[in-house]
């Protein structure tokens, strides 16, 4: 990195912040030599405001990393604060107001036994891992979990009909780590939830991502078959790195850097992921999980490639490989 008094003052401040993050929240995922190695891929400049390395170092100092412990805590919240109260609400709405807490509690337990938690996507993908943590954290029995393909009785397909495997089930809860644009969720809804609802109109379906971008959540609420869509943590526009009201560039002195930093990220993003230079469907996120970094985050953070434009990531993404 460039070393002169004007650069050093900024580097010192950001380095100190990153050190604290590295040794606490980031689970020691990015020590300084790794950070320097990553920064080395960007250009330097005499003017600190135009120095790409300082621009992205500032971005990195805001990277939101969620380790295993944090993800587990959020999964506890998902069950305790999101799903269970929702079931209790639905149970109570079918009862008179004079019912006792014990009665509601026991009815919720009955309903839970008729609930299935479903992972979104392939069993080798992250949502399957999330369900494993979810089951452990909430002390739930194994038989409350299934994969999407197990919802239906496939033996009935040959005879021309589509049947659900277990007709006693009244609720299906789909769990995901992140809802970005919402397109993936809508596709899943078309493929699984719509057929399910047409076969068993009485069942309720819930889509609960741990994190959800407001736009994606709105899309699913209006354009999918899920009855209930609710993230544990909703990320509004201000969480998009270069939105006009981005929370990264509130301070007047820093606000001036927003457009320059966006241009830098776009320039590298164009080479790394030409179709999505600022993350999948312009996600512009700066978020990562212990199990992976979502592609909605800026590619400069996660892109890992050796091809024509080699790149060393700071929070690697393990991509889905398609054969």
């Amino acid at each position, binding site marked *: 990195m460039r070393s*002169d*008094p*004007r650069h*050093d*003052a900024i580097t*010192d401040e950001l380095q*100190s912040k990153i*050190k604290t993050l*590295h*040794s606490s929240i980031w689970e020691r995922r990015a*020590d*300084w*030599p790794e950070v320097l190695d990553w920064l080395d891929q960007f250009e330097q400049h005499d003017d600190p405001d135009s120095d790409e390395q300082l621009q992205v170092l500032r971005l990195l100092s805001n990277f939101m990393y969620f380790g295993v412990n944090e993800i587990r805590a959020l999964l506890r919240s998902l069950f305790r604060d999101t799903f269970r109260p929702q079931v209790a609400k639905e149970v109570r709405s079918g009862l008179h107001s004079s019912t006792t807490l014990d009665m509601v509690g026991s009815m919720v337990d009955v309903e839970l036994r008729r609930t299935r938690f479903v992972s979104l996507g392939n069993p080798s993908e992250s949502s399957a891992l999330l369900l494993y943590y979810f089951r452990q954290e909430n002390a739930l029995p194994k038989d409350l979990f299934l994969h999407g393909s197990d919802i239906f009785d496939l033996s009935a397909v040959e005879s021309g009909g589509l049947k659900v495997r277990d007709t006693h089930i009244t609720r299906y809860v789909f769990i995901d780590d992140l809802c970005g644009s919402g397109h993936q969720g809508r596709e899943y809804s078309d493929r699984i939830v719509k057929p399910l609802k047409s076969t068993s109109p009485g069942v309720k379906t819930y889509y609960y991502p741990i994190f959800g971008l407001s736009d994606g959540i709105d899309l699913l609420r209006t354009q999918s078959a899920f009855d209930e869509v609710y993230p544990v943590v909703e990320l509004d526009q201000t969480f998009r790195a270069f939105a006009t009201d981005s929370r990264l560039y509130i301070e007047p002195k820093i606000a001036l850097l927003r457009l320059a930093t966006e241009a830098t990220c776009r320039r590298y993003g164009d080479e790394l992921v030409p179709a999505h230079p600022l993350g999948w469907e312009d996600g512009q996120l700066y978020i990562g999980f212990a199990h992976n970094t979502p592609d909605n985050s800026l590619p400069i953070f996660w892109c890992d490639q050796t091809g024509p434009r080699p790149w060393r990531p700071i929070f690697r993404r393990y991509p889905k490989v398609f054969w």
Partner: protein
Amino acid sequence: MSGVTLSNPFSLTKANDLSDDQIQELWVDIAPPDSPDSLFSAGRFASPMPTFILGSKGSGKTHLMRYASFPLQKKRFERDGLRPLPGARVDGYVGIYTLCSGLETGRFQGKGQSDEAWLEVISYYLELSLGIAALAVTDDLLDGDVQHNIETAFCAAVGQLFDSDPPAANSVGGLIDDLERRRRELDYQVNNAAFTGELVPNVTASRGKLIFGIPQAFQSCSSDLGGFLFAYQLDELENLTEAQQKHVNTLVRDRRGPATLKIGARQFGIKTHATMSAAEENIRDSEFEELRLDLRFRRNEKTYRELVALLVERRLQNFWPQSSTGLAGRSRRLADWFEEPKRDPFDPFFERLVKNAPSPERPHMVHLREALAGQLSRGGIRGVRKEEDIPAIMNAIAVPDAPLLEKLNTFLMFNAWAKGLDLAQTATSVRSNCEAFVRSKGAGPYRQKLDHYKSDLIAQMFRDASYRHNYGGLDEFTRMSEGQPRALITLLKQTFDWATFQGERPFEAGSISIDAESKGALAAADWFYNNMRKAGGDGQAILIAVDRLAELFRINRFADNPIECSLIGFSVSARVGSEISQRNLRLALDHSFLVEILGGQSDRNSEQVTGKFQLNRMLVPKWGLATGRRGIKPFSEVEMNAIFDPRMGEAFEKVKADWATRMNAPFERARRASKDFAESDAGDSQVDLFGD
């Protein structure tokens, strides 16, 4: 140490956080335990004379007292193949350790009860608590036939100590159960007094009866049970109120039988030495002895250096096995693991610091040249009458190959200017002295000035280059820790963290970089400073005072002609300053933001003995000040109040302006008395620090 994995060998900093095993393993001493020079002996645990073990936070009081306590003694007895009873006789004592904070003494006040009532209650509570602890030790001491033979008699003797309702137990375990029941009942009453409005304890034993009676009863049971003391070790006495401390002082005064008290407290945590015995005061060396731990270290820097080196080695052996097996195994001096700041004036580092610029373009040369040129039209600089005189002076003092010496030369020129000397002549003599030094590198006045001012000169060069000042090296860290081992551990903890984050392998390969050390020192200073924010209004007053003090010291450090070199200390008469200022000075000392310098100093202008104080060197990286104290500035009444009274913001600004004009060109303030400060009792004229 088995079962303990740390990512930083210095991460455990408080003795309270250490297990018994860790206390034992990490204990280091400067001499064998039976040597009078050892720390352990200094605690005088086997002496019947009560001892106050005093020291600032982190000076090692708790580690020493826990090391001397019975659970640790037992471990050593086991190691040496001794049973507890013979072991106690060899040591001459058994240590009964109690943390005063564990008594939760805050409960014993208010709630609609009188102070007298609470005093009786805490007195009885302490009686029960120490009685239980003493009984637990006797239970461990008695084993086999001895226990069988004397237990009944011992229990009967303990029963005799009670004024009423004596315990019916006939075993030590039964006695402990009985006393614990009484304490639980008392806890219940104390905790509920605010709601019940009642406090009617059943006080069944008088003050001192159990504390001194149990050891006596034990040793009276058989002649085989004598030959050692029961040393009650009360730690953190500062947590007791003045009235509660008075009670403890009474126990100290009334000590009797084979028992004594060893009391740990912060140096300024002793609120009174008064007793309840006809309001008599306990007198040091008459009723008690005093061990001042950090003073002991600060008085003997060499001993302290040896101690902390051992302490670091022990940490590495126990928590960082990859550092091999300590000093012997690595055959590398501990200090060699730390990069030292550059101090040699001929080190090429200083040329890099001025960016390899030629002499006339270096910041210190530009500054002097511009200062002289700026004053030329106003006159008044001897030896500088016309413009051509300035380049002649600048050429004379230039040292192209050694920017640090050149910087010193500009310093000497400013000093001559402040004194009204002829600068043309001064430049000639500076050049000749400098050349002689470059040739011989020998001792002499020039060398002396360089040594005295080197720290300030380098600090100014760093500031000119806009670089952070460097702190580092084991010696400097040791000095900064001010005789408090925990401060050193904190410095090393932060440094280790920075070094590993930056990809270094501390204590495994290479040396810890000066960059990591400086960042570690700054982080430790911030930690120390920010801790004070928790201390409420008092904390705020201390921070204001310390900030102001540091601001003045910075003015001096970065001045053209400082009044003192490496200034972080001051002296002030005990008579000087308002009540508020004196209180805040005491608070700053109490919280170790300031450190008392040993021995009084005679004021330069009077025979009056004054107190000498300095900023705690742990804090100095925050302001880029020196760690090696040399000068001490006597403070006037005005200065004292302006710094230590938070309300005197305006007066402080005046003091600041006065310091700045006095020490910086054109030195007008230096040669005339200020009306504002005419009444100062400290010297107002410029002191010649550059005189030979």
